């Protein structure tokens, strides 16, 4: 399908009760929200539930809501707030049960990402990105995949404009730093082999 009407026009139709517009908006954003959710937590079910809650909420409040200035920015921001709240709730529950361990890990997904990547470098970068702190991974996503400006990112993440720039610089620095580390280890390993033969 070619692109239909602008998001804001859809939103306006939703306000007037159009279920068709609602479905169209949903299908336009479900994959985006999934990939965004993954930068924050690797828990597919939790992300799916949060997407449902977000859209249900939009539908329930359709009569009273205003048309957002930028629909994509609004959706990502609202989704982020909702997902982070749920992650915190889950963490509390886990604490009550006195369980330990990293709840954000899902080895199956790591395997999947590794499998899908075609070449070595790609695989390698994807591993490095997955080891970044959440917020750094998130800003790489918002900047390199969604193409938001620093100003928009600041609004979505609720931080200052300069902080957004700093955060991205740190993330880039980390990706390069780790790349150099691995090269270093590889060199050591090779010289080690050299020693034996």
């Amino acid at each position, binding site marked *: 399908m*070619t692109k239909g009407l*602008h998001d*804001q026009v859809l939103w306006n139709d939703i306000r007037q009760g159009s279920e068709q517009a609602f479905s169209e908006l949903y299908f336009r954003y479900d994959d985006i929200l999934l990939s965004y959710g*993954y930068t924050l937590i690797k828990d597919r079910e939790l992300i799916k539930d949060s997407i449902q809650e977000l859209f249900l909420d939009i539908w329930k409040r359709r009569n009273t809501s205003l048309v957002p200035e930028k629909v994509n920015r609004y959706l990502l921001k609202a989704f982020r707030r909702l997902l982070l709240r749920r992650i915190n709730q889950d963490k509390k529950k886990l604490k009550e049960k006195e369980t330990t361990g990293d709840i954000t890990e899902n080895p199956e997904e790591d395997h999947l990402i590794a499998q899908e990547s075609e070449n070595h470098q790609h695989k390698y970068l994807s591993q490095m990105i997955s080891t970044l702190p959440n917020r750094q991974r998130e800003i790489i996503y918002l900047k390199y995949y969604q193409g938001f400006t620093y100003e928009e990112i600041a609004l979505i993440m609720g931080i200052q404009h300069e902080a957004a720039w700093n955060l991205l610089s740190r993330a880039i620095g980390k*990706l390069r730093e780790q790349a150099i580390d691995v090269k270093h280890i590889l060199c050591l390993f090779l010289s080690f082999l050299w020693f034996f033969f």
Partner: protein
Amino acid sequence: MIPEKYKDYLAPDFASDEDFIRWVLNNQPVDKTFWDKLISEKPEKKKEIDQARKLITRSRDILSTPQFSQEEKEQMHQKLADAIHNTKSIKGYIGRAPVWVRWAAVIFILAAGGITFLFIQESQPSFKYETEFGQIHTLTLPDSSLVRLNANSCLTIGSDWNGQQDRHVWLEGEGYFEVKKLPLTRARFFVHTNDLVIQVLGTRFNVNSRNSQTSVVLDEGQIKLAFKGRDEEVIMEDPGDKIDYESTTHRVTQLKVNSKIHNSWKEGIQLFEKISLIKIIEKMEEIYGVRIQVKNTSLLERNLTMGIPVEDLNIALATIESVLGLRIVQLNEHEFMIE
């Protein structure tokens, strides 16, 4: 953007520069001109720029991989629709069917899936190009045929372009084709839309396929149309022949138009000659992705002669204002009202 600013930039600086990232992600003509020039003037920066580019595009690809399967998509959408209507899901009905019915259903689905799979395998598209609202783009295909793609359109290109086999492209939206003849192999050229297939030997023509309608206007040469859902084929051979096909009703309409005016969008200006306001508004909604309302509905049938620039909505609106002698008010960013 000032070239001097980038004098001391290294890869990480480029990778966090707003203008640089925008160029890598969108490759808009303005940015492209700037960065191409910068690279040619400062060739020593090329390595750093390439590194930063790779980092950005690879990260983008990696972070975009989590996606819903078609099945998951439908399931979630159904769940949402159910929640809205507060009804129970259809699962209950399947549960009640007798065992043999369930097995029959499974076998049927597997068989249907297999057949669909074979069809998809037969001619798999390999490259896709999309234009934004208010943007025209020219593509050169591997056989050096040219396609000018109008705003809000998408062209997918098949994988076999060695000159021996037939060439296939899939179009959604509007495109103007200048197909290169391959006299040695006589490899045919096919344009697929949702509603029909156009077979070409070497010629110029315009295709516009939106919603359930496809219109084809011939400029030069000869083409053959096969409609989905109809057995007959139609050959178009006179310049200015226009065929509209409505796939929901299977209706074929033949018309004569001035192909120069009809296909004028490819030079950047869409001309209209005695076209009703409602048709013009439909076209504008296609091109710019906006909604235009008319207060006085009796105007809708009025025929107008005018031209609008495909890549500039503001001038298009101003033109309509002056042709009608009416004011256009902006309701919000993407909705307008002709008073």
